[in-house]
């Protein structure tokens, strides 16, 4: 009896309907491109395109479950990549110290955002919008408004080496590993559970001994660190840290999380969903390019996709508890 209940729940889960949607989209583009879509090279392209956004999706997904959002992730990533490039190229530090410096940069910006939100009670939207500008400006200043060339074997290997006959990129494996580890943290650990509890009802969480303020700091700093890694991955791939870096990927992270069923109301969704959302987003983008859709119309289509996800989210959350 308990089993059939669990089974019914599985079918009702958002992830289940998402997989159906993903399969339909894949079949749709498969037919429309006469199978070109399924070629190994194209699948590699899709996975490769996911790498940068994966890091952002993990961080944003966790923040949205907690009930906040970080609009500065993109520019934090850009700024951090420039910090790494300077560390390695200007100061001649080892590549891994460079990445460490970038991560520190991300931790600092995350800490500032969390302070603005928890101590000064700024809306997360406003606080991180300001941080976005600050980081964008700093990236310009330190990057001398152009790009810093990176010549480093290790970084180039991380960014471009491909295993198995030039098919599976290192970067993809790293990104998927992160997704897996964070997925386990979110679903299976005390820390992960506390994110859901805070997002579901902060007062109730507080009254059972959880410290939502501390959680806020951890999650924003985590977001900053992940954004920094996204920045470093991109810089490693293109062998330079540019002043626009991952800026344009800012909203892809949020979009993938929302597509994956992480509700803006907080307290629901999960990493499996976010991963499917990420796949969906990239399959969609890739498919549109393959069929030769005008790039401007691609942007419109992406927007419509997000709207559809939000509408589904609205009907799913309506009636099941309150939206905050």
């Amino acid at each position, binding site marked *: 009896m*308990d089993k059939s*209940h*669990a089974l019914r*729940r599985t079918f009702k889960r958002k992830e289940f309907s998402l997989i159906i949607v993903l399969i339909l989209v894949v079949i749709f583009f498969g037919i429309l491109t006469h199978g070109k879509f399924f070629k190994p090279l194209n699948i590699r392209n899709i996975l490769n395109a996911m790498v940068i956004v994966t890091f952002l999706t993990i961080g944003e997904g966790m923040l949205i479950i907690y009930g906040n959002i970080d609009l500065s992730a993109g520019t934090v990533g850009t700024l951090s990549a420039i910090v790494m490039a300077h560390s390695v190229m200007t100061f001649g530090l080892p590549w891994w110290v460079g990445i460490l410096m970038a991560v520190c940069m991300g931790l600092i910006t995350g800490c500032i955002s969390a302070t603005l939100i928890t101590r000064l009670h700024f809306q997360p939207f406003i606080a991180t919008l300001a941080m976005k500008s600050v980081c964008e400006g700093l990236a310009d200043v330190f990057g001398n408004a152009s790009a810093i060339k990176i010549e480093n074997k290790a970084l180039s290997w991380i960014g471009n080496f491909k295993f198995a006959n030039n098919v599976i990129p290192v970067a993809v494996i790293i990104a998927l590993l992160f997704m897996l580890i964070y997925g*386990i943290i979110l679903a*299976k*650990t*005390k820390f992960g*559970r*506390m994110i*859901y*509890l805070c997002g*579901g*009802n902060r*007062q*109730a*969480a*507080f*009254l*059972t*001994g*959880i*410290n939502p303020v501390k959680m806020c700091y951890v999650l924003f700093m985590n977001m900053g660190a992940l954004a920094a890694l996204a920045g470093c991955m991109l810089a490693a791939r293109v062998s330079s840290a540019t002043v626009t870096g991952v800026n344009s990927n800012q909203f892809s992270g949020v979009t993938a999380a929302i597509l994956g069923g992480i509700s803006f109301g907080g*307290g*629901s969704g999960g990493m499996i969903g976010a991963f499917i959302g990420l796949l969906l987003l990239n399959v969609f983008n890739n498919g549109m390019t393959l069929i030769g859709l005008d790039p401007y119309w691609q942007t419109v289509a992406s927007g419509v996709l997000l709207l559809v996800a939000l509408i589904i989210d609205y009907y799913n959350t309506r009636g*099941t*508890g*309150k939206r905050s």
Partner: protein
Amino acid sequence: MERYLEVNNISKSFPGVKALQNISFRAESGTVTALLGENGAGKSTLLKVLSGVLKPDEGTVVISGKEVKVQDTHSAFEAGISIIYQERQLIPMMSVAENIFLDDSPEKKFGFVDRRTLRAETQKLLDKFQLPFGPDELVGRLPVAYQQMVEIMKAYRRDADIIAFDEPTAPLTEKEIRILFSIIEELKQQGKVILYVSHRMNEIFEITDRIVIFKDGQMVDVVNTAETTEAALIRAMVGRDIGDTYNKLDRNTVIGEVILEAKGLTNDVISDVSFQLHRGEVLGFAGLVGAGRTETVRAVFGADRITSGEILIHGEPVKITSPKEAIASRIALCPEDRKEQGLILKQTIRSNISMPVLSKIKNGLLLSRKKEKALADEAVEKYDIRTPSIDKIAGELSGGNQQKVILGRWTSSLIDMDILILDEPTKGIDVGAKSEIYQTICNLAKEGKGVILISSELTEVINLSDRIIVMHNGHVTGTMTREEATEENVLALAMQD
């Protein structure tokens, strides 16, 4: 034509509660009619029906011979009803003048607001009410008492036939109360129908002409103010059958040593609150809404700061600055609002129960579903939570079962608290589930726990508690045993001025 307000057979039910049952009375022009009753007796519900916030299930409202259908707040204005609520309905970022003329500002051509007239009219009102601030002052910057006066001016300006005041004097000083009363006197002279809700007996005797007494959603009596006494009113408010519910309870009889002592707890709401809680004791906190009971227990639990005072557990002074520290001192709080503060409605019963003990259901780094299931099963078993599965969403449970989930959270083999604070545990719960919760409270005491019980239902708090602390306005105004306590003497302490 004579003005009057007639309420005929108004009834209103909420799930599990009959908030109003067949209320009928008539209020005449040029008189002040008091609505009197305990918390939850139905006064505020009636005002909400009159103002169109709530729709009655049955009954009619007749104003001066014409039946009015109050659909919403706007149609209430049209019908000539103006209600001044306890919670002020002002816009803090707008000026006094803009707030007073919110719904119909004087206009110039093309719909522009005529600021000059707006300010002049407001100034006239301010002079009349003898208030020391200007029309351009932002409402949000005024002290609470003045905000209340702005609210009253708003209703006065509308020139409504029926004006209802919901505890208007609560935030006012003596001088402001005098001004308000002279205004009410003037409204009487103008032949308005005035309804006046207050807990303050001396005010009721000073300005009202007739008194409608409410109890448990029913109207128990209508008397002329000149022909009654304070004692008679209190008797009418509380006199009800206690029933067998309390006699049947299997109570704890062994009361042990002091396990919690609060000394002089003070913050911006409560002042100098001291009490002792013994092992095996149910300690009740009685008082009106806003008396500071919830604030007291939140301070004990570390959810609110205290500016001075001391908490001792088993005789040892402890510093509690967060719920986490309180929990470590084996204190648990079941908060007053189950849905807003107690449960995570979107989450399952399972994860609502495991909230405070996540560290204890781990296997290495990961949470163990097996241990969590065992914990939830234990609570379901112990409190007889009626649910098909522990994976049911907490928001889908009935009020009584939700309360049991919260109790189950704090009393299990993994976490066993010495001190349980229950803030309004039976609020919005149907009668059957209530008596289950009553027995649960007695059982907790029998297990040797100290239980603090806050309830706005007087019979409940008096009949369940071994001792009752009465609070008023942030102070403790009395302590008595169950044998000493009567609804009359508790209410007298809770309502004193």
